[in-house]
């Protein structure tokens, strides 16, 4: 065992870092520093993703034939470390990191040709239609109906927790095409044009009180929406298989690089805040709490390294993936909580539109230091991470089954 990188790998890191310095420009940095959820606005996201696309780096995991950069696992991990370390926005997952894999595996040649290139160029944004008001942890109980009517499916029902639906051109969606068999078997995987008549996107206001249009999640209503049968992926009734296949990719991401950046921001705050005349970071209690988080984060980071470096190509991380999600999300919440504490009394002040000055909208003068504003919204908002993608309770249920057969 050793932890060293090869000279080529170090050169690659330099190359990535230099590119980021040039392309993650000052306006983007300023906006990310005031982001409450880790994204830019729609235009910013598109611009950033298109810069990555032009460099050939927007889809590190894609096979070369579809436009991937043909990196080793280590290169990918260096790339993500550098992006996260610089505080870059994440590439929106639903296109590049989700539906694309399903299309590659289960899509027809026509579907791949139609959809993959615009995903890669960030010309079309996607959203995910899985959860429904009555189906959260128990996804297989989903009810949204898709009935055959000629060459179309006719959709009625609603999807919820739909991240960035208001930006999306397309939705990939699980629908119920049959009621007869066991719940998993009657589900199909459809691609839906978000401009179809009968679709309504209603924002869901989360605890961080987002500005209109900046909301993260939505409920999407379907009223006799017609979707051509050609937009079915795989066979009818194969939707659950597609969803499970996709899940393996969703859980295979490294969390630690982003968390390290978030924790470093807490340190910067604590160096600026004062307690009894000295920087807060010098106060023993605060320092100890910071150290505890840094140690837990090192453990999470090293665990990701151990798990991913131990995987053979195509192998899934199994219960380890659940563990990494559990550990990382709990850490992330604790980091946002420490940030909320670090900003002190100004954490209480509400600055709803943290981007107003940057985007030349009218803004009230801010109370308190500029870093204080996103702290409370981020703490509130990040309660979501132990809920979405399978609650922490569901993760533990799954792990118990995999590890102990219980």
């Amino acid at each position, binding site marked *: 065992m050793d932890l060293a990188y090869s000279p080529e790998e170090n050169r690659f890191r330099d190359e990535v870092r230099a590119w980021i310095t040039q392309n993650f420009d000052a306006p983007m940095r300023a906006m990310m520093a005031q982001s409450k959820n880790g994204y830019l606005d729609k235009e910013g996201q598109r611009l950033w993703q298109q810069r990555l696309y032009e460099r050939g780096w927007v889809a590190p995991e894609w096979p070369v034939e579809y436009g991937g950069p043909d990196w080793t696992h280590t290169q990918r991990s260096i790339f993500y470390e550098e992006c996260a370390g610089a505080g870059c926005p994440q590439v929106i997952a639903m296109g590049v990191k989700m539906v694309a894999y399903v299309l590659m595996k289960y899509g027809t040649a026509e579907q791949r040709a139609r959809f993959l290139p615009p995903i890669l160029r960030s010309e079309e944004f996607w959203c995910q239609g899985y959860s429904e008001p009555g189906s959260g942890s128990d996804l297989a109980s989903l009810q949204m109906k898709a009935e055959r009517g000629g060459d179309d499916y006719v959709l009625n029902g609603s999807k919820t927790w739909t991240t960035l639906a208001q930006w999306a051109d397309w939705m990939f969606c699980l629908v119920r095409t049959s009621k007869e068999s066991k719940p998993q078997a009657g589900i199909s995987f459809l691609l839906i044009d978000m401009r179809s008549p009968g679709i309504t996107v209603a924002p869901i206001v*989360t605890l961080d009180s987002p500005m209109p249009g900046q909301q993260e999640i939505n409920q999407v209503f379907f009223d006799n929406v017609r979707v051509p049968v050609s937009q079915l992926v795989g066979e009818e009734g194969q939707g659950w298989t597609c969803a499970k296949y996709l899940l393996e990719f969703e859980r295979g991401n490294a969390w630690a690089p982003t968390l390290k950046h978030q924790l470093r921001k807490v340190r910067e705050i604590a160096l600026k805040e004062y307690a009894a*005349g000295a920087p807060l970071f010098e106060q023993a209690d605060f320092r100890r709490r910071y150290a505890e988080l840094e140690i837990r984060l090192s453990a999470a980071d090293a665990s990701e390294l151990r798990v991913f470096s131990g995987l053979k190509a195509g192998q899934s991380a199994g219960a380890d993936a659940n563990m990494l999600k559990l550990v990382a999300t709990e850490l992330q919440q604790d980091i946002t909580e420490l940030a909320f504490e670090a900003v002190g009394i100004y954490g209480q002040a509400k600055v709803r539109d943290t981007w107003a000055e940057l985007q030349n909208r009218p803004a009230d003068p801010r109370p308190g230091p500029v870093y204080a504003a996103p702290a409370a919204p981020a703490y509130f908002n990040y*309660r979501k991470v132990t809920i979405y993608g399978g609650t922490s309770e569901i993760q533990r249920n799954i792990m118990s089954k995999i590890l102990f057969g219980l």
Partner: protein
Amino acid sequence: MNLSLTEEQVLMRDTLRSFLADRYAFDTHRAILESESGWSANCWRALANELGVLGASLPETLGGSGGNAIDNLVILESMGRSLMVEPYLSTVVIGGGLLSRLGGALAEALVPKIVSGEVVIAFAWAEPQGRYELSDLRTTAVRSDGGYLLCGHKAVVVGAPWATHFVVTARTSGGERDAEGVSAFLVERDTAGTSLQSYPTVDGGRAAELRFDQVRVPAHHLLGEEGQALPMLERVMDEAIVAVCAEGLGVMRRMLDETVEYAQQRLQFGKAIASFQVLQHRMVDMHIAIEQATSLVTVATLKLDEPPRERAQAASAAKVQTGRALRLVGQSAVQIHGGMGVTEELAVGHFFKRASVIQHQFGSVDHHLRRYAERL
């Protein structure tokens, strides 16, 4: 020894709760918060005139009902259950309490108006660099013309936009964190040189940055003795701590009720999620956390008249226990609500935000654990 409420206290609690259920239900509450002013002057007047709540804990000689700190506990717990934002804590507990203890002409002039709802007080103690330390003051008051000239910046003064008067701490001598040289003043809202930058707070309240530029304060608005106010302010702070903890108890009780109800209704895998043992145990732990905090808040309330060390330890212990409970109860309530918990649609998220702010208000758990440990 006696740990029961008096009949009057029980009556007042029940009256207040039914008033709040009636006039401060969740939808009304949201409308009040989203209004221009962000509070309900009507409700405030009703508390004064219809219910007599504002005078409950204040002396009969000054127009109150002659109650005590337990009345404050009962009232704030009830207000917490309804997320009431109106400034009872700063007006009655802090302002009313302090003036009543000091007595004299100022008390005789103002306390009856607190009781009647005409005078509203905000407590301007924190400063940007001060981090929960009462004596960490850059605001200064200099003697001038038989009065004082006040200069400085007070941070996140909760309720200030609604206040008619501020209780302001300032340094009349000594260095930035000295115990000596701390003074307190009553400042009228519209005194020349006073400016307010008002804004909403993340928990639905309103606050302001208060700036004083050569503000003239008459000598009889000095509260207590010049330069010797710290012991008095420490007591005020302990009262504020206990009061905000009491409010926190109400917030937590409501979160637990909402959570149990939601868990019983929400079906997944064909059964109510309340049937899962892990969630049952979590809800039991929430209940225990609330009960244990209630015990220490009660004790701290009863110890407000003890010597400073005992009083401070009791208040800090209550804040530590309540702070931990608020975290556990708040985070668990949101988690058990799942996706719905992170939206503003249900009440639980609003309670969680208020709980999160109370955790830090008047000092975080770490701060009060240190304060307690220093006095061991």
